[in-house]
């Protein structure tokens, strides 16, 4: 280890992360240790996704890569440790705490700062920039505070109409503020789009409620009478009332440390480096936004990551050089697609521009091609950027066929199927070529999108290339004869979603008819429960009706949870966790009478374990007699709706969370789905019900409820994402009805809501469009379907009690219905019984005989 060379990285942003990650991945001999000095009090995070912080993401959701990187023995991350001085002679960096970090090689990755023009009033409270999590958090707090103080929605303005400005305007809208974008130039995003694109963009943005004011210079920000931001004064003498101002007027490299250390600084700032990212000092490199490479600083993540990879490669003896920046950009703002790539402004001599504009649909598209109209040079897409992922990698290649096919709405002319050359870049954030993706499939054994993502990092940053990655993976698998099978099992050659459709359309209601029409053989333990669940979802008939019983999996088959010794547990329904004392007593009494082990569940219910098959109907009868019902602690169905005590008792509660939880549980009980469903309701933002860990979380606000979807505990914990905000009870029901029904119809077998939401084409935004804007025209159908479910709910346990045929299934032995399973054996532990282990069974003295546990009547 004495040979280990010390690298110090000054700066803790995305590029510093990429450098460290690449170094640890490639430096397998442990030649270098890496110390990262981060100014912010947190590990590097995804700054590009900053706006998603408003759509319900937590700071930790923005974390980059595998957090285990920072646990690596050769990596040291110093948070809250801004570097303040560099001594190049002594090769030392001093941080703000006075700690000295010696280095063998220094990486400058200090990034940029948000620059604001010297406008009068720029220091007033209520003026923000948009760069770090702290900036965004401060903005959020301020807007929320002002809304309360003012008692009306907050008026926001964003100065700067570039990419970041529009992001900020979107963020203000997410916060419930109105927003106006003040742009100095004649159009929005003037660096990326041309006049036609700018016009289309303005229209689209204005349709979403954001005001746009181009050709406007801001002269001053004026205070209100309390000293807060109050209004904007423009150079043309115009004025506008505002409560909060965000500057998005560009970034400048943070080159002051380099400057102080005597490194050469570019004309417009930035530490000057050569094509290998090295400064004039062979022990110092600069990467990312602070580097002035090929004469300019580049404020985009993709070239920054490329520089990080080059620096690593060079340190390990490689030959990589900077290929020039790909300034392609695609963003989606408030649902509006904007993309710009290649020679978007047709500066190549002889370049031709093909444009398509549909002002009604709000679409503007332009392709820039060579004078023979064969080779793609660049393009601009506004309103519909679906072709971006396919087009961007084609820059410099032949378009193949009629270029117009790429401009007209999808489907009007068939787009030529162009095979990308291996060297074409697919993921510009992580610099992954089409060839690398193909290699992952053919040589590295990746057969699924997730594996390819993990292996190549393609699509792991902004994700805009994922459709293309998916397509390449698909065609490569097809070529190598591997079919991406979505067959349910050997009996059904279709996915659950396809089967759901087939069953719904054909109106077949028995398994034998369904497998005869759509499958082969007699079925198995995979397809039978799936069909059983689909039939239950569509018709909501009893799980044991007609030939359904034989389709049901273990627990649904007897409507209780099978435990390891073959006995069952019974979990009475306790809607919302609210329970009468007499029902508590009844549960205790039943447990005592049958000698059942009792435990409080995670879903605010009481579980009674150790009931034998033949005892189940007796136990249900006692629950039914007292006005209770057994509950679904089993099955792919709604489990519980967990709640906190809410505004009835809690000092902090703002809404009746218990009432809402009960209403939801009674509404969705018995609903069969691709996987289990859990809901939660919290009565205030303190979120005591942990609702965001649920498939659907409802959280009270001062004005109503926020609904979050796609949360998950379990093996892969996820926080639910915001679906709607500040809505009333009726809207809560409506959106959850649609969300759940859409999930039930389209998810894969055993796919929970979080991965379904993620895998859904277009993600949560697209799901939102389906259930809020009715983009598929199916909302009436979803509503009617859920209404049918609610109307036809029956207590499935009580239904068995009334049916002698079904009751016959609840016998221990067909030839000895009064004999309990003689193999059951228990031992006492902490005053209750549990199944005996193998060795305890051999030592029979400790056993409790099952005969002692008969009902005392």
């Amino acid at each position, binding site marked *: 280890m004495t040979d280990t060379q010390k690298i110090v990285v000054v700066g803790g942003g995305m590029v510093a992360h990429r450098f460290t990650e690449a170094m640890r991945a490639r430096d397998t001999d442990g030649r270098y240790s890496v110390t990262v000095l981060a100014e912010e009090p947190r590990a590097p995070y995804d700054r590009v996704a900053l706006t998603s912080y408003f759509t319900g993401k937590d700071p930790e959701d923005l974390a980059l890569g595998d957090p285990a990187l920072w646990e690596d023995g050769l990596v040291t991350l110093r948070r809250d440790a801004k570097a303040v001085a560099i001594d190049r002679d002594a090769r030392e960096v001093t941080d703000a705490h006075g700690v000295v970090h010696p280095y063998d090689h220094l990486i400058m990755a200090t990034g940029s700062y948000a620059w604001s023009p010297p406008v009068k009033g720029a220091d007033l409270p209520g003026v923000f920039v948009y760069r770090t999590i702290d900036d965004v958090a401060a903005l959020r707090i301020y807007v929320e505070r002002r809304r309360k103080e003012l008692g009306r929605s907050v008026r926001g303005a964003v100065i700067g109409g570039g990419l970041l400005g529009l992001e900020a305007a979107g963020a203000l809208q997410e916060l419930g503020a109105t927003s106006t974008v003040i742009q100095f130039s004649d159009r929005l995003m003037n660096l990326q789009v041309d006049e036609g694109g700018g016009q289309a963009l303005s229209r689209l943005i204005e349709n979403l409620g954001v005001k746009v004011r181009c050709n406007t210079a801001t002269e001053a920000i004026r205070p209100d009478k309390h000293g807060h931001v109050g209004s904007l004064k423009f150079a043309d003498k115009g004025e506008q009332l505002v409560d909060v101002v965000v500057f998005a007027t560009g970034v400048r490299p943070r080159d002051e440390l380099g400057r102080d250390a005597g490194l050469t600084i570019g004309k417009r700032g930035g530490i000057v480096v050569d094509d290998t990212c090295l400064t004039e000092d062979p022990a110092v490199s600069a990467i990312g936004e602070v580097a002035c490479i090929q004469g300019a600083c580049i404020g985009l993540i993709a070239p920054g990551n490329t520089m990080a990879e080059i620096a690593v490669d060079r340190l390990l003896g490689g030959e990589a050089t900077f290929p020039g920046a790909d300034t392609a950009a695609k963003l989606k703002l408030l649902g509006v697609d904007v993309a710009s790539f290649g020679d978007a402004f047709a500066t190549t001599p002889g370049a031709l521009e093909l444009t398509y504009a549909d002002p009604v649909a709000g679409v503007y598209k332009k392709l820039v091609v060579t004078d023979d109209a064969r080779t793609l040079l660049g393009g601009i897409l506004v309103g519909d950027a679906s072709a971006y992922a396919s087009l961007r990698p084609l820059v410099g290649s032949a378009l193949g066929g009629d270029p117009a096919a790429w401009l007209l709405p999808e489907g009007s002319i068939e787009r030529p199927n162009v095979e990308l050359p291996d060297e074409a870049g697919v993921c510009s954030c992580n610099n992954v070529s089409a060839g690398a993706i193909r290699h992952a499939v053919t040589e590295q054994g990746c057969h699924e999108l997730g594996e390819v993502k993990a292996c190549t990092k393609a699509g792991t940053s902004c994700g805009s290339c994922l459709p293309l990655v998916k397509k390449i993976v698909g065609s490569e698998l097809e070529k190598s004869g591997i079919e991406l099978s979505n067959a349910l099992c050997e*009996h059904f050659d279709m996915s659950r979603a396809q089967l759901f459709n087939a069953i719904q359309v054909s109106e077949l209601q028995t398994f034998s008819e369904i497998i005869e029409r759509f499958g082969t053989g*007699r079925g198995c*333990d995979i397809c039978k429960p799936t069909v059983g669940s689909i039939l239950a979802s569509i018709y909501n008939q009893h799980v044991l009706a007609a030939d359904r019983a034989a389709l049901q999996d273990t627990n649904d088959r007897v409507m209780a949870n099978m435990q390891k010794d073959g006995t069952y547990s019974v979990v009475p329904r306790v809607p919302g966790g609210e329970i009468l004392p007499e029902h508590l007593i009844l549960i205790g009494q039943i447990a005592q009478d049958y000698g059942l082990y009792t435990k409080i569940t995670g879903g605010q219910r009481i579980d009674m374990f150790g009931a034998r098959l033949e005892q189940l109907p007796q136990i249900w009868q006692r629950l039914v007699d007292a006005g209770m019902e057994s509950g679904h602690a089993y099955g792919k169905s709604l489990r519980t709706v967990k709640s906190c005590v809410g505004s009835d008792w809690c000092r902090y509660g703002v809404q009746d969370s218990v009432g809402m939880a009960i209403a939801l549980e009674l509404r969705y009980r018995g609903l069969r789905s691709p996987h289990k469903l859990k809901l939660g309701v919290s009565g205030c933002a303190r979120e005591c019900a942990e609702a965001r860990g649920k498939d659907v979380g409802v959280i009270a606000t001062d004005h109503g409820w926020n609904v979050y979807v796609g949360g998950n505990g379990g093996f892969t914990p996820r926080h639910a994402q915001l679906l709607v905000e500040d809505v009333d009870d009726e809207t809560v029901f409506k959106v959850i009805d649609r969300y759940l029904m859409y999930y039930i119809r389209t998810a894969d077998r055993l796919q929970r809501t979080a991965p379904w939401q993620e895998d859904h084409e277009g993600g949560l935004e697209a799901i939102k469009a389906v259930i809020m804007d009715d983009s598929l025209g199916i909302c009436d159908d979803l509503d009617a379907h859920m209404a049918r479910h609610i109307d036809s709910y029956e207590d499935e346990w009580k239904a068995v009690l009334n049916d002698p045929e079904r009751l*016959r299934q609840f*016998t221990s032995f067909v030839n000895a219905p009064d004999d309990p399973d003689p193999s059951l054996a228990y031992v006492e532990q902490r005053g209750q019984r549990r199944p005996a282990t193998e060795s305890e069974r051999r030592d029979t003295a400790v056993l409790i005989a099952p005969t002692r546990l008969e009902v005392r009547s």
Partner: protein
Amino acid sequence: MTTVSQRAAVPTASTDRTAVCAYDRLTADLGVAALIDGVQVAIFRLADGTVHAVQNLDPFSGAHVMSRGITGTRGDEPTIASPLYKQVFSLLSGECLVTMDKAPREGLDPRLTVFAVTVHDGLVYVDVPGAM
């Protein structure tokens, strides 16, 4: 041959057959358990009318639950899946066709014992060697 259809020959008097229940008591594809001289047996009537019997003990869990599994086919082979850990067994040979990457409980054979079944005069008989 371990299974015999409903129209099978009358069993001879020399077998250890025990009348378990009426054939009509069995529902297609819904197993039942029987207790035959202390041995727990899982009995299945399949959609084609044939009746099969295997041990009710699931060798992978040690619990007597096979009668509560899901019947099916793997290719042409009729099968039963354990309701606990979902191993799949042949109803013809008792062989474990899908182990779910698990080993059976210590001392237990992964293969199920298959018992001969006869249906005669509307009654289901199971031959459990040693039982009377």
